């Protein structure tokens, strides 16, 4: 089953994503970006990602905060798969133990 609002959201997501893929090729290929624009573009994905997960950093559950700290440490030294496994395992176990 497909819902109209969901289809519209997905279509718009796909549209703006395709624009980002061709935009650099069309607009920027012969024109270097300014210093400020480059800095903003470079920082943008990280700013968005950290904002999306910010609620996890101010959780009221100690188990979640400890699990997040463990995940953060894992993320600085391990690749995707082990980090995800450690994060999920730590969260599952700590919630079970501490609540």
């Amino acid at each position, binding site marked *: 089953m497909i819902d109209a609002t969901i289809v519209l959201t997905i279509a718009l997501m796909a549209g703006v994503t395709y624009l980002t893929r061709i935009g650099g090729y069309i607009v920027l290929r012969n024109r270097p970006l300014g210093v*400020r624009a480059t800095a903003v573009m470079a920082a943008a994905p990280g*700013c968005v990602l950290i*904002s*999306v997960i910010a609620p996890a950093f101010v959780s009221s559950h100690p188990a979640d905060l400890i699990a997040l700290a463990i*995940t953060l440490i894992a993320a600085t030294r391990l690749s995707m798969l082990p980090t995800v496994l450690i994060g999920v395992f730590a969260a599952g176990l700590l919630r079970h133990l501490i609540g």
Partner: protein
Amino acid sequence: MLQSAEARADAPRSELRRGVASSGPVLLGTIPYALVLGAQATQKGLSALELSTMTGLNFAGGSEFAAIQLWTSPPHILLIVAVTFLVNSRHLLMGAALAPFLRDLPRRKAFPALFFLCDESWALGLADARRRAADGTVPAFSLPYYMGASLAVYATWVGFTTLGALLGPVLGDVEAYGFDMAFPAVFLVLMRGMWTGMAAARPWLVSLVVAALVYLFVPGAWYVAAGAASGLFAAWLMASDA
């Protein structure tokens, strides 16, 4: 050199195969990440068909994770589309870096090829083009190589996110097992990949603090927009220091 003489006469099919083969290690990392996204999407009420439509048409993992994390029923369209654009804004820089190698490619080929631009195919395609340029191979950019790598990543991504969505209901409430921690885990590893030093990461810290405060004190999903905007503003201000 013999190698470049061979490469000049490269048959598209063997170039395609070379692209698929070089994407192998990346695919192994993609699969668990795809399964987690699929399983989480069903928790948010998306059907497997809806999710595969999203991953097939949008084909940009980071933005899909962000969208699913923020997904409500009905979805907040503006928020999700804006976040998708911001997460994928790095494509603008990636496309610009690739553009010099695409000059000899007709636009009717470049535009479809760019649909498949992702972190993995970009990195592989650009590295290959630079290597071939250094060897004097013409053309430096091998479209079939790039497409081989792209299509392998595409098929894996769409296939395994769909599989994750089909398996999701079998797994039940994934939060009880701690599966929701997969989001911060994935995002933090992605951010480590973007890490270029403490100074460049200061806007991220601004985003984190502002987003957390807004989340605690303002109802709704404004924390994403507020956090992202303040981080970008910080990046803009800090750029003049450099």
